[in-house]
């Protein structure tokens, strides 16, 4: 168990929230850069809608996985070069709640 957590350091939840400055950056990234394909209001575009209603019932882990690794066979790219797992988890969280 200890080995497991050492070799996969990351699947972070509320205990490793991004700091407020980074949260502001991430929020801008979601609105503007995710918004390029998913719409500024996240109601969808070339990409699917990402509103709380549209994401209802989807597993947060699977959504996190999609953000970090992308979806092959679609234009959705992997964001892992730019986001930690904790940050992806935070993004999933705000998407499910609805953007502030």
């Amino acid at each position, binding site marked *: 168990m200890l080995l497991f957590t050492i070799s996969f350091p990351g699947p972070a939840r509320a205990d490793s929230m991004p700091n407020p400055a980074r949260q502001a950056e991430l929020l801008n990234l979601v609105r503007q850069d995710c918004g390029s394909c998913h719409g*500024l209001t996240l109601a*969808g575009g070339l990409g699917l809608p990402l509103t709380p209603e549209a994401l209802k019932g989807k597993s947060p882990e699977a959504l996190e996985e999609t953000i970090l690794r992308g979806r092959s066979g679609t234009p959705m790219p992997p964001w892992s070069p730019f986001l930690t797992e904790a940050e992806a988890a935070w993004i999933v969280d705000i998407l499910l709640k609805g953007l502030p």
Partner: protein
Amino acid sequence: MRHKIIPLFFLFSPLLLSGCASTPLRGTGDMGLIIERAAGSVQIVETTHRTRLGQVPGLGDLSHASVNYSRDERYAYVFGRDGGLTKVDMLEMRIVKRVMQSGNSIGGAISQDGRLVAVANYTPGGVKIFDAETLDLVANIPAIDDAGKSSKVIGLVDAPGNRFVFSLFESGEIWVADMRVAAKPVVTKFKGIGKEPYDAMITGDGRYYLAGLFGEDGLAMLDLWNVQAGVKRVLNGYGKGEQKLPVYKMPHLEGWAATGNELLVPAVGRHEVLVIDQNKWTEAGRIPVHGQPVFVVARPDNRQVWVNFAFPDNDTVQVIDIASRAIVKTLKPGKAVLHMEFTPRGEQVWVSVRDDNRVEIYDAETFEKVSELPADKPSGIFFTPRAHRTGQ
């Protein structure tokens, strides 16, 4: 004699004088719009003195917004992501009419005769055509393929002969709609043109329609002088055997640089600008650039081409010299450069820097920054002379 007295009377009327002072006559040929994507507003600007004239709010979700102009350059048609089509009076700086014409749209076009405005829609997929004067719906072309499935429509442009040309993302088709009888479009369909056309352009002469493919490496080309020949594949498999990079922002083809003999286009998922020989329709070269190109825009004299890039390289602009294919300048305007628009004769270029909330204005010859204007998350910049260009 009487007819001389009347003008004199008007000349000295205080009412008329004050009226003149508040609304001086002006042309619109040096004017333009800057999209403020998050605020849902547009700024009205002029390029002679490089000033902001006003702002028009209330245009909805303007992510990926684009603009066409009426042939008199008085009115702008703004196409919003949320399906809103808004007609803006450039002189009175107000919304004349606004219709919510679909749930989700991607862009539009104005017909050769200026009487029809077409909008490309994602949800539900198709093209809706409106009377340019009233914005009343004239015709509706649902993008339903033979299997009954709806597609998102992209790459909608106008073409000579009062036609609209557009592509279907999911089904991989190019459709040509002849609008000579506006209420009864005659649609010619080209199927199996390639996987996932993501954007398209038409050359300035209105002859060649080119759709970029996302699902495979290559472009689909339709010669509108010879539609019977069908759609041909251009640059088929231009990146064969090479690893394509993830794409963080779809390239745009609206600003594709056509220099007469060569077309410069963004490579998808590569740090390259592709050069196409426009006579043979073969690859004439590749120019390595700083990142994945988004817009590749020719200066109006076609001597140089300005390129911006996708996230995470979107702080940079590069200038390519056409003759030598060398990068002659690399600029760092700021965070998230989204669009570049040249003044009509190309002495200056306006650059929107989204995350720094400003538009920068550069001398297109010396690359010196001339001025900057504040703007709220600016994206597209559209100057009125587009009114007279096919495909814009």
